[in-house]
């Protein structure tokens, strides 16, 4: 049982950091950015590049996150802003193309083998029967800290109010004199930055490969949709719930139903998110914390 908890905390934190960013972009710009998970991969590789250039891990991570955040704004201004003029569907397809280009470029530069960040190999610590490594403890703490910080910023600062105003009604925000362009820039920086953090944390915990972000696409989208698109709290709750469901389904001995002992193959893990998504869309299409009425 403790194993499920540890698993949920680690995987849930990674998914939450990504789902929050996805839901922020969806909330402010009304389009699903498929390339969002690639920011995690980019974060991992930029940390690899910077540590490779001789910088320390902490400095490389911080710089890597900043680089990805800046890159996200550049991509928004050069690409997504133009695409969005033709509608959210066009932007979505554009983001799909961008994701493919990013993966191909990274593969060209780094090859298909996973890369490591220079972290010492550590034995797991026995935590009530489950093993957790120090890097995983850091991963969970940093994620929770950042998520809390984000919540505070959105709730209590003028910047947060501006973001929420643009999300609630872009036209009204415009006529109220808000600089919408700036707000959107900041949302891109924030969401891509969080994605980069999750990518770097995951790279420290295991390794960074071309598919790092892509493998998370389904659970991240599932968490954002189940949580209610545009809802930060919903995305976080859904991320941890999804991770917990995945872990439970894999841990449960299905032998009671089919006879003998039978564990589900781990390869079916993404199916859990998919099933959850289907159930949610069938019974509560607006998501956990979504509003029932669509705004114009």
């Amino acid at each position, binding site marked *: 049982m403790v*194993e499920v908890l540890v*698993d949920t905390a680690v*995987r849930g934190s990674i998914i939450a950091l990504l789902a929050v960013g996805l839901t922020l972009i969806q909330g402010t710009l009304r389009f699903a950015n498929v390339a969002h998970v690639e920011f995690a991969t980019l974060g991992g*590789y*930029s940390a*690899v*590049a*910077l*540590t*490779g*250039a001789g910088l320390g891990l902490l400095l490389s991570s911080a710089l890597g996150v900043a*680089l990805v955040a*800046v*890159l996200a*704004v*550049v991509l928004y*201004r*050069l690409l997504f802003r133009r695409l969005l003029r033709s509608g959210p569907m066009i932007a979505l397809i554009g983001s799909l193309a961008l994701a493919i280009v990013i993966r191909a470029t990274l593969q060209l*530069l*780094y*090859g*298909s*083998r*996973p890369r*490591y960040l220079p972290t010492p*190999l*550590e*034995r*797991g610590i026995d935590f009530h029967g489950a*093993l957790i*490594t120090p890097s995983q403890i850091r991963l969970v703490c940093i994620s929770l800290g950042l998520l809390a910080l984000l919540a505070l910023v959105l709730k209590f600062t003028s910047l947060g109010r501006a973001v929420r105003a643009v999300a609630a009604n872009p036209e009204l925000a415009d006529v109220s004199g808000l600089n919408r362009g700036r707000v959107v820039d900041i949302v891109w920086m924030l969401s891509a930055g969080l994605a980069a953090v999750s990518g770097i944390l*995951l790279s420290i*915990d*295991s*390794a*960074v*490969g071309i*598919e*790092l972000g892509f*493998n998370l696409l389904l659970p991240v989208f599932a968490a954002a949709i189940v949580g209610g698109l545009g809802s930060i709290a919903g995305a976080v709750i859904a991320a941890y719930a999804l991770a917990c469901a995945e*872990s439970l389904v*894999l841990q449960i001995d299905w032998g009671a139903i089919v006879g003998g002992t039978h*564990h589900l*193959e*781990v*390869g079916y*893990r993404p199916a859990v998110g998919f099933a959850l998504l289907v159930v949610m869309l069938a019974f509560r299409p607006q998501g956990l914390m979504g509003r029932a009425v669509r705004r114009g």
Partner: protein
Amino acid sequence: MHRRRIKARALGLAVPLVLALSLSACGSDDSGKKKADLPSANTSLEGEFKIGAVLPLTGTNATIGKDQQRGIELAVAKINEGDGVMGKKLVVDIEDSQGTADAAIQAAKKLVSVAQVPAVIGEYSSGNSIPMQQYLESQSVVGVNPGSSSIELRTTGSLQFSTIGLDDVAGAFTADALWDKGYESIAILAPNNSYGTGIVSSVSDAFKELGGTVTTSGVYTEGQSDYRQELNRLKDSKPDAYVITTYGKDGTVINKEIYELGMTDQPVFDIYLSQDVPDADPKSVEGRIGMDVNSTSENGQAYADFYEKTYGEKFISSFNGYAYDATMMLAQAINKANAADPEAIAAALTEISKTYEGVTGPIVLDPDGQRSEQPYVIAEVKNGEIVPQ
């Protein structure tokens, strides 16, 4: 004015982008660069003799494909430094299979119909090699498999060969070795593809026949960044020894997590040790035992030196040697047949195999055209190096 400001701003943003890209380029490795030039071709050779190869140069198995390509490259250099093929320069036309069966067949089609080669080397994954060899057989073209090990390759036809031992050979050897070490129960982890499922069943069957038990056997999806769930399954089944086989790119993560989960307190046995160890953190694989192809023969050592001198690194997988042997054998068979006729080449291949000493050991082809035995070796990792026991 306004427009110009936007331009200036765009420029301001483009600069960090360029910086980021150039930085990442700095961080990329130089492993693709050659350290020494290949020997140049004998100048007395006139004209070209073309054979084909279909390798996974892109896609999941791109690293292995690149290594196979190196094996072929070295063989071609060796052949052309000498007498070539039928007095001509040997050229291997290498096509990309993209790691998929469909693209592999398309590539083979191109080689057969456009380049009109009498023989094709390839592929790596059994799921691609089998349909490709079936296609080659239908076109009466010789096929030589240098990397796949599914036993279904026995049935692809009379012009189809393998220079690598199939799963039944490798599985039986592994089971014997485990039993000899005194392990009575094992848990197995392998990749979820025809190689993985094949090796799992052949090791399990052979081990059970010896009287042992298999506590659990699992297959993992390639390319994940975390395999703790799979590994915990193995751990929870409490076997005497863990048996794993991975591809290098997954092996790096798997080995790290094996160490983190404390599984290295138990014996971990690796099928094809050299597929994993070079990429792993040395601490995580220290003391690891396993089986691998034998490369300590005199032939093998000279080849290993040649490889290292040319590419400035040790073997990145154990698969370049089979591709090297496949190319060498084909060249010899063509010389013996003295014709570009597939039937004659196939007959010559079987004939020369009786005494053929390759860099991966003697390659005796059985009536199915498959390598009937292969020297394996049990090795241990000591101070980060693979040392045969």
